């Protein structure tokens, strides 16, 4: 997304290339083109594009990907600071989170 880049060096995304079987699903589900699969193995090609949605890790059949996924939502994070619970999105309308 041109013009839409967020903070750098923060994502918790991690790939274990030794486990990867090259199925290609992570590349298909990532909405930001962070991962690319070539020659039977996935690579992180745009780490700072990752928004930690968790789609890739959830769909990796061999758990080669890990990311601490969640909602990038300020009010949810404030709530979690106050209550100590993990952030969840409280808003139910479209567009939010």
């Amino acid at each position, binding site marked *: 997304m041109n*013009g839409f880049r967020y*903070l750098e060096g923060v994502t918790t995304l991690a790939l274990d290339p030794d486990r990867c079987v090259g199925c290609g699903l992570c590349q298909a589900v990532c909405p930001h083109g962070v991962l690319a699969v070539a020659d039977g193995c996935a690579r992180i090609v745009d780490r700072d594009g990752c928004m930690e949605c968790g789609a890739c890790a959830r769909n990796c059949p061999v758990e080669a990907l890990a990311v601490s996924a969640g*909602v*990038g939502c300020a009010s949810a994070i404030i709530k979690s600071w106050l209550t100590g619970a993990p952030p969840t999105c409280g808003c*139910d309308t*479209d567009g939010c*989170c």
Partner: protein
Amino acid sequence: MDASRPPDGAGPHRPSGLALPMTDTCCPSVTPADEAPCCTPGSDANDDLPGYRVWPFVEDWFDTPAGRVPRVRTRLGPADLLGRWAMRWGIGRDRYRIAPGLYAVGRPDPAAPVLVTANYKMTFDLVRRDLDGVDAWILVLETRGINVWCAAGKGTFGTEEVVRRAKAAGLDRLVSHRKLVVPQLGAVGVAAHEVRRRCGFSVVYGPIRSRDLKAFLAAGLQATPEMRRVRFPLGDRIALAPVELRGVLGKPGLVAALALVVLGGLGPGVFSQAAAATRGLGAVAATLAGVFAGAVATPALLPWLPWRAFSAKGAAVGAAAAAVLAAGWPGPLGAWNGLAVLLAVPATSSYCAMNFTGSTPFTSPSGVEREMRRAIPWQAAAAATAGIAWLAGAFAA
């Protein structure tokens, strides 16, 4: 994120196509004449169940090996558009959902694709509109009236629900293939390999936007890289403005405005109604300017603003708004009040802009948390200094 929790409300066998009972439904109360409820001549069974009514978008019903399935229109009627608009502004209802289950567009046969979507009516409306001329089955999941992405993040649009609905709809009796087209953004909640293991259907991730569905189907379930990338165009950012404003301007906003008016009356003469009016309303106007700068202008200008952090972008827009406001202030402003405006507007704007991170499709939770840890102390300090300067202004005048 609890994918195993059964969704409340509808049981698996509530007939799709019927509106939910009036008590918990949110169907538009207006039914224009050309959107007369279905029950076309020739439909023999009795579709009138007590307490239910048929959605205007149901064209007719037809029998399949998996039971009767409602066929839906691919044209949006005035009621759909009105409901859409009302939903954005939160009028009347906060959920806008249809019954989960199986629907059809066109004349699908056993080879026709099965498209999975959420039971948020706005999502469903987009899908059926974009399937004009296509023959397909639509499997609607119970996401409690929430769109695909939000629901996938919460886990209601998830593996569990896909498997449950596929089984409840009798898909294996209905179609000859074993594929489910799930929107790509649903992948946050759905694990393709688990769906396959548990119900035998393989998940094919479809395009992000429903308007690409036709091309995706025509290409034999192939998405182009372009279809797989999320975008955040100006129209989408503007469309979120009502949602953002509603978040700030509700009851707490009213209470805050009242407090400002009361505080505005304080001064050398203990309390003055005239001061409450001018100073209090002035403070409310400044705060509103900050809210507007952060929740509407910053999102609109997002890609052109400097810096990555939303709080910084918001502060920049807020500073510009403050300068304009202070320059055009009706009547004398004074140094103290001027300082208050120049601090309060950017602080408010920065905070509101930071809240907008929750509505964008590219901000990571780790990034938002880091930004908040840095920005909130500054925002609080600026707001507190502004408040002190403003109160001091009453006495300095």
